[in-house]
């Protein structure tokens, strides 16, 4: 939002004497909203005065140029000026740049300045230049010269009107302050914070019609949706360019001057914060305005020349037959003010913020007007708005009042009263203020204190409950509770005057979060094992899922995604990790990455929230086809479980309903059970996907675990096994396994003997050879034997081995390899 410094002076006449503009910006930032920058407006203009053209002659031998005689004071000497504008004529007042003066170069694209010199043109000495609106920085108009209002004083230094500074204020922090979307509102804040005198120039004059045009207003919507509607007709007006002060004010805040009526309406909106709409009375069929809901699928075209489809939740202003405006958002072109307009209707309405916001969102249309209504405007200010507009129109466009001032206001808004216990200032803000100061701060912001004379002990810090009744001005819709008033007190006192302090607290120790402990342990273990942690988006897309033969329909969809690639929520960490693996694969031959984070399932739990466990997943890429990558990643998972002290782990053939079933190598994939519960998957990616879909050289293996379940299985504390002082003995056995027997059965079989001297079984090697045209699978295992009582003798060891071997042979037909 742009706020003009000159404009503010209308409300704070001594602004320039009291505060420097940089200080002002700083104070506004500290007390209200950030001033993002101070923009100089037309500061370089110099030596431009008001002159009257008294004579115009064609320059001989030129089709365009005129020889003009101008005066800059009533009895002053005539100056000769050559002018090329088509609209120069005797009797008009113009802006004359004198030799040595500075104007904007009308031909330059980037508005560079140029210095006026006395110079010869077609043998005539030109003593200055008559300026266009563009040369003065008012607008882009360079078709002709700017014609000033006849009231402008001859010789007046115009740069004093044109030069300005504009404060660019961040809107976002004012979304609860509709009153601050106006120069009046910002001026009020400045006056309060800087303790300056605020002058309200508004005069509440009676508006009495001199003749009456037929005019009627009907409101056909609920009073909550349109709490107030003011309208008045003015007849016999003259559409003219606005006076310089008005054009200058509007262009400073970025609004293009158009004509006096349109400019006045805009000016009052930026001045008082009340959006105003003006209609060409003669274009309003039936001379009536109706506030109503639009018809469904009704098509309408507005001032921006675009066609919109309306619906029956949108409030519109219509004439007897057709829609003119979307209330509070945009006007129609039918009744637009034109140069031929003679009679006008002025409207100042108040519309419900939610209704405007909804219509504006569904039309995709935000305007200066809707921006203000959306914040919740005060219905009390419509009357101020319409009277200000009427006053200015009568003044600048002449005309006469041609209807009563219509005021539809079924339920006038009353001032709120908020009670404040003054001890709260110390309790809540931690600052010690005396009662008198607290009251002053509030009064500076136009709050009134009921029965102020009864409040005692003004010069001390309130210590027992002093409850005051604060009367809230109607424009402060944001003030509803005592805390709102405490904020006001703090703002005026100045946040920079409040010193930090630490609260006094108990010695209660914090409880470590289980998920945090688990996450930290896994991150440390995996990074120690050479894994790099990556973070990927929580969003996934159909293309990626398709490349892994996965069904995106199993993912929860995002209604308004940034792009189709981010259209769903991940139900597995693997797809994004595979994508990142491939992106890095050109640079890294062997890479190991992992991620920890939430996945989201379509299913919901008891609390209606989607089930969204934390997952932990790792992906390994290897360009070495000889190694069985599955065992590499299995080793990593086993090491992780060891570090997390997780036991009772089983690796079983992949479940037919596993989410990632379609992506994996059918011969190298498994589910992981812990204490019988499935907690994840470990697998290689299907060779076909690698080759055809991902087109990657090498193999990819991965694991994905439900970290939420896993964290509950982790014991965190390692247990200590007592050490024997006697020697350990090692015996390696190579065993031939029947084809249907798995390694785990071999181990289980040996363990089932419960031999207390058997410290552990280690897997050493697997080899496959062919015997009698049949494949024969041999596994070498190492038995580590140790007793707590003595060193085992050869005989004792052999007895144990015999027991093991005979049991393997009897139960599983496993034999020692010959």
């Amino acid at each position, binding site marked *: 939002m742009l706020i003009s410094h000159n404009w503010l002076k209308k409300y704070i006449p001594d602004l320039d004497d009291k505060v420097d503009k940089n200080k002002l910006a700083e104070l506004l930032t500290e007390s209200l909203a950030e001033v993002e920058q101070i923009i100089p407006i037309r500061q370089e203009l110099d030596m431009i005065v008001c002159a009257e053209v008294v004579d115009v002659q064609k320059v001989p031998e030129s089709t365009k140029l005129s020889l003009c005689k101008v005066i800059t004071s009533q009895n002053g000497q005539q100056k000769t000026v050559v002018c090329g504008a088509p609209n120069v004529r005797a009797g008009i007042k113009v802006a004359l740049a004198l030799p040595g003066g500075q104007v904007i170069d009308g031909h330059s694209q980037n508005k560079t300045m140029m210095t006026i010199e006395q110079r010869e043109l077609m043998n005539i000495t030109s003593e200055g230049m008559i300026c266009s609106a563009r040369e003065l920085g008012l607008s882009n108009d360079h078709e002709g010269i700017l014609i000033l209002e006849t009231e402008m004083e001859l010789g007046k230094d115009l740069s004093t009107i044109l030069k300005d500074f504009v404060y660019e204020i961040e809107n976002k922090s004012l979304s609860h302050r509709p009153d601050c979307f106006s120069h009046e509102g910002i001026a009020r804040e400045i006056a309060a914070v800087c303790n300056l005198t605020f002058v309200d120039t508004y005069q509440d004059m009676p508006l009495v019609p001199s003749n009456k045009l037929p005019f009627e207003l009907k409101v056909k919507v609920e009073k909550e949706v349109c709490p107030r509607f003011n309208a008045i007709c003015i007849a016999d007006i003259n559409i003219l360019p606005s006076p310089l002060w008005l054009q200058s004010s509007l262009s400073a805040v970025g609004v293009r001057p158009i004509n006096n009526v349109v400019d006045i309406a805009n000016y009052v909106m930026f001045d008082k914060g009340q959006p105003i709409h003006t209609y060409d009375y003669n274009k309003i069929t039936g001379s009536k305005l109706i506030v109503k809901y639009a018809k469904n699928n009704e098509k309408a075209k507005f001032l921006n020349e675009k066609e919109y489809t309306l619906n029956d939740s949108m409030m519109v202003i219509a004439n007897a037959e057709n829609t003119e405006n979307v209330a509070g958002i945009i006007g129609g072109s039918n009744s637009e003010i034109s140069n031929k307009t003679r009679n006008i209707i002025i409207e100042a309405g108040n519309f419900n913020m939610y209704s405007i916001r909804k219509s504006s969102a569904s039309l995709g249309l935000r305007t200066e007007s809707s921006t203000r209504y959306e914040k919740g405007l005060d219905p009390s200010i419509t009357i101020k708005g319409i009277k200000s507009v009427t006053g200015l129109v009568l003044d600048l466009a002449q005309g006469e009042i041609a209807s009563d001032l219509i005021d539809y206001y079924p339920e006038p808004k009353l001032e709120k009263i908020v009670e404040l216990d003054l001890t709260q200032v110390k309790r809540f803000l931690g600052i010690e203020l005396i009662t008198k100061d607290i009251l002053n701060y509030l009064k500076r912001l136009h709050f009134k204190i009921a029965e102020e004379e009864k409040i005692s002990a003004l010069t001390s810090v309130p210590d027992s409950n002093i409850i005051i009744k604060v009367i809230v001005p109607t424009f402060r819709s944001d003030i509803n509770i005592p805390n709102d008033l405490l904020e006001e007190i703090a*703002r005026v006192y100045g946040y920079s005057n409040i010193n930090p302090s630490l609260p006094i607290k108990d010695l209660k120790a914090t409880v470590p979060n289980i998920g945090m402990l688990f996450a930290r342990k896994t991150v440390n273990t995996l990074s120690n094992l050479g894994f*790099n942690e990556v973070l990927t988006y929580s969003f996934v897309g159909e293309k990626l899922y398709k490349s892994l033969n996965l069904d995106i329909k199993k993912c929860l969809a995002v209604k308004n995604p*940034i792009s189709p690639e981010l259209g769903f*929520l991940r139900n597995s960490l693997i797809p994004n990790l595979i994508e990142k693996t491939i*992106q890095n694969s050109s640079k890294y031959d062997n*890479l190991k990455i992992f991620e920890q984070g939430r996945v989201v399932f379509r299913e919901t739990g008891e609390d209606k929230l*989607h089930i969204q466990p934390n997952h932990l997943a790792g992906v390994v890429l290897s360009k070495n086809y000889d190694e069985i990558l599955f065992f590499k990643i299995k080793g990593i998972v086993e090491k992780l479980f060891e570090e997390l002290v997780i036991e009772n782990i089983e690796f079983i053939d992949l479940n037919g309903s596993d989410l990632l079933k379609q992506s994996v190598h059918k011969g190298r994939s498994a589910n992981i059970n812990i204490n019988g519960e499935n907690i994840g998957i470990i697998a290689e990616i299907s060779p076909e996907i690698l080759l055809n879909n991902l087109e990657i050289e090498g193999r990819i293996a991965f694991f994905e675990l439900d970290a939420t379940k896993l964290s509950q299985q982790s014991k965190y504390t390692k247990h200590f096994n007592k050490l024997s002082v006697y020697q350990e003995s090692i015996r390696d056995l190579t065993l031939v396994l029947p084809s249907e027997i798995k390694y785990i059965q071999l181990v289980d079989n040996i363990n089932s003997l419960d031999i207390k001297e058997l410290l552990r079984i280690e897997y050493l090697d697997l080899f496959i050879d062919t015997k009698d045209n049949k494949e024969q699978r041999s596994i070498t295992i190492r038995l580590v034997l140790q007793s707590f009582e003595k060193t085992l003798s050869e005989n004792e060891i052999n007895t144990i081995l015999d027991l093991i071997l005979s049991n393997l042979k009897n139960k599983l037909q496993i034999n020692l390899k010959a």
Partner: protein
Amino acid sequence: MADDINKDNLLEHISDIVNKYSESLKNTKDLASLNRLEISTLGRKSELTTILKQIKDLKDPQEKKAVGQQANFAKKSIEDLILKRRDSIKSDYLAGVESKEKIDVTIPGRRIETGHIHPITQMTQLCEDIFMRMGFDVCYPYAIDDDFHNFEAVNIPPNHPARDSWDTFWTEDDQIAITHTSSMQNRILTSSQPPIRVIVPGRCFRNEATDARHEHTFTQIEGVYVDKGINLTHMLGVLKEFFSKFYEREVDVKFTPDYFPFVEPGGMMSLSCILCNGKGCSVCKKTGWLEILGCGMIHPKVLEMANIDSNTYSGFAWGFGVERLIMLKYDINDIRYFYSGNLDFLKQF
């Protein structure tokens, strides 16, 4: 077997062993082969040991003695030879070994690669640790939450214009990819009794186009502190304390007003610029201050929605972005690196 054992055979054998061994010893160039030779000549399974074991089978005590003496003599002389040879190998090796083995110490060492922890994880842990030292518990948010927890419970009713400040991703069933970790605030306030001190680090989402300074996915740490007698100065004090510990030096804080419906008063907190110590530099845009977080005194409505009596208790809340802290610390110029999975980026942390 016993028939083969006689004095002469044995003596001859001993002499053969000594000869053979003396010959081999000359060809032994290093300690490892010397050790192997020693084991094969004097070890448990050596010929000499076998002979020593066989002496007991000789019947004649004289012969026993003669062979025994000879064998022991042989053993002793071999041991002496080994000792000498060992000394000579050692001294040969040591003579000039260091100059021969001289290396260029500037050649890079062989690295053992470990993995790297993502900077967001590292920074989050650092923040968690400081807040835990200050007495805050840690809890984590959901990724997808409902309208009530993300908005309504923090005083942002449906259709409220303030919702425009949070560009929201909606799921097909009208749930929300959380826009801030304040989504946990109501649960925290409802499930515990004051004093309540909790931080909520977590991943948040905003539906906005990405560029070097904006990401639709980011990490926020929100915190709440509710107790009797908590006031605005405490909010400034606790956050000042946190950042002073974070940067390991005293920082100044500044509070400027801003509007968040869940706090009143609410605002932005700035730190004295950590790069220029508040003198003004390009990072702080010559202001001497860095805007770092949004914070404020918890709105009474938020407390009351969690059944906490706002007349008895008060508190404050804040939220800041982890990525911004990392970018400031390491002078990172593009926020999109964080979720890029680019290992060249990640391996630097």
